[in-house]
């Protein structure tokens, strides 16, 4: 016996409409299949509702990114079905060219990874034509390919976005939160998205940095497993325009990686220099001919003026000591006497 036929997204006669979501007027129609006959129907990958939020995110990078960044970028692309890719930017190009690229690609948000010195990674997040835009330093990247993150989720399923309450406390964080929401939230009924919510993007603030995590929802009671990727964003600046314009915010805690490395280097050199100097000093001390102490400074410390005593000479022979003990028998004798 063959198993019952499965149909995806079949809604009876409205089956064809599934693909042409634009024509569905009733936006409240959910992916609730009518159980027609004995056919087992599952929710359609493309839902019946109308895709209204036409958010698109351009994710691309500059030339000279390392493999880890490339992997991270690909992971973000798999996680965000509303993303688009583009060829790598030349490093020489001015940043505002990106705005034009976004326009060409029909995107209104942009994540641009900029690699510098083959070791530092910066990420630009921008609302394309009008701004604002943010520049981050990206640290501690872990990609999906790592084996320690054991979760898995559907490709293109919509994420929940979880924010730290700190995001509401300060204006720049509030702005960032809105930007994050618009960038990372997959639009409802996006054609490439899945009709399930099975993972959470977590944005938390610790140590003045934004920590990104992605968890899979396993059980309904809140059991989670990390899927990845994970990275840490350190805010550098917030600009009013997209890739330019006046600065709205500058992170006072930010220290450029170059500066950080320089400080480390300086600390080591200072340590070394100090050691060298000490060594030299010791050498000099050793070679310096020692002054012979001709005069003892402490020689006359005990030369106290005392009373001179007359010299007494004993002329008589020393006589018997009157206090001499009385003769006593030897031990052997004593023992025998006691026996």
């Amino acid at each position, binding site marked *: 016996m063959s198993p019952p036929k499965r149909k995806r997204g079949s809604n009876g006669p409205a089956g064809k409409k599934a693909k042409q979501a634009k024509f569905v007027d009733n936006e409240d129609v*959910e992916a609730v299949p009518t159980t027609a006959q004995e056919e087992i129907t*599952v*929710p359609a*990958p493309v839902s019946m509702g109308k895709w209204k*939020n036409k958010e698109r995110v351009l994710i691309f990078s500059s030339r000279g990114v390392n493999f880890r960044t490339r992997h991270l970028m690909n*992971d973000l692309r798999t*996680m965000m079905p509303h993303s688009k890719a583009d060829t790598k930017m030349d490093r020489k190009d001015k940043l505002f060219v990106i705005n034009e690229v976004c326009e060409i690609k029909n995107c209104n948000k942009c994540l641009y990874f900029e690699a510098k010195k083959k070791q530092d990674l910066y990420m630009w997040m921008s609302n394309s034509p009008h*701004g*604002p835009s943010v520049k981050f330093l990206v640290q501690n990247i872990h990609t*999906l390919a790592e*084996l320690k993150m*054991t979760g*898995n*989720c559907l*490709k*293109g399923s*919509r994420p*929940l*976005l*979880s*924010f*730290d309450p700190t*995001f*509401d406390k300060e*204006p*720049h964080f*509030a*702005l960032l*939160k809105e930007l994050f*929401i*618009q960038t990372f*939230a997959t639009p*409802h009924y996006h054609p490439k998205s*899945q*009709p399930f*919510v*099975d993972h*959470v993007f*977590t944005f938390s603030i*610790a140590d003045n*940095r934004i*920590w990104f*995590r992605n*968890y899979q*929802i396993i059980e*309904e009671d*809140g059991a*989670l497993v990390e*899927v990845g990727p994970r990275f840490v964003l350190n805010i550098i600046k*917030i600009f*009013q325009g997209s890739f330019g314009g*006046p*600065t*709205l*915010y*500058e*992170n006072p805690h930010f220290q450029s990686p170059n500066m950080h490395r320089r400080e480390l280097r300086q600390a080591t050199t200072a340590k070394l220099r100090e050691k060298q100097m000490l060594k030299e000093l010791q050498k000099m001390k050793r070679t310096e001919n020692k002054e012979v102490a001709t005069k003892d400074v402490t020689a006359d410390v005990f030369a106290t003026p005392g009373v001179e005593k007359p010299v007494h000479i004993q002329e008589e022979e020393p006589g018997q000591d009157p206090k001499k003990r009385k003769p006593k028998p030897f031990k052997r004798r004593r*023992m*025998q006497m006691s*026996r």
Partner: protein
Amino acid sequence: MEDDTQLGTESEEEDSDLSDGELQEAFAKGLLKPGMNVLTSKSRTCVNNVDGMKQCLAELSKTLPWVERLDLTNLPAEDIIARAEGKHPAPGGSVNAEDDFQREMFFYRQAQATVLEALPRLKKLNISTKRPEDYFAEMAKSDQQMQKIRKKLISKQAILEKSEKAKKLREQRKFGKKVQVEVIQKRQKEKKAMMNAVKKYQKGMTDKLDFLDGDQKAPAAANQKNPKADMAKRGPNAKRKSKDDRFGFGGKKSGKKWNTKESHNDVSGFRSKVAHGKGGKKGNKGKQNKRPGKSVRKKMKSRS
């Protein structure tokens, strides 16, 4: 006052545009204060345009229903582990970013709180969080990758199990040695008791042959009831007794071997024939060595 000006001039030595006179003037006006010239990390004047940001946010924000955004802002869920351990987490949701475990736990709990809050809302909106069993779609991680992860997990578990087993074995070996030694000792003891009993029987001290039966334990136990009392009744053995006679037992030890007047005067043991080595020769002659010398013996051996 002197000191203060001194301090000021000292730290300002680098940029020597200011002359001492100017500094003194400044000090007189009260512009210079002690502690003003402490070296600090140069403070950048960071831009923080709050109004601009607020305006920007107002422009940026869209009026979209929650379904489109799926965002939630919440404190982390209650830390069950910390509560069980009796620790009180820092209020205000701050974490030590250096402590990896604590930090990750914080993020996890935040995600958990979000999930717990979002699930009812999603249910209300008729969005499911679980796909049906027969819903197949491409996953974020490929099957190959998941297989790799599984393999790694399994190998990790195997390693853990192996180490645990080895630990157990090591402990067992240690304990086993002790047991073995005990068993051997016990066997030896039993054998000794048996031999003793046999000897006793041979000497005719007992007529009973019950030690040959299986229960050697009972007589041994009976013997061990009061061995000390037995010994006391019997008194010391003959060898001990003779030794005691010869060397003495108990009492004062020192001065025993010394001569006394009586012993000195006692000449009963004196024999003039033997005295002063005279008797030696005679004695030697008397009991001459019957055994011939080595060479002679050899000769004799070769002859025969």
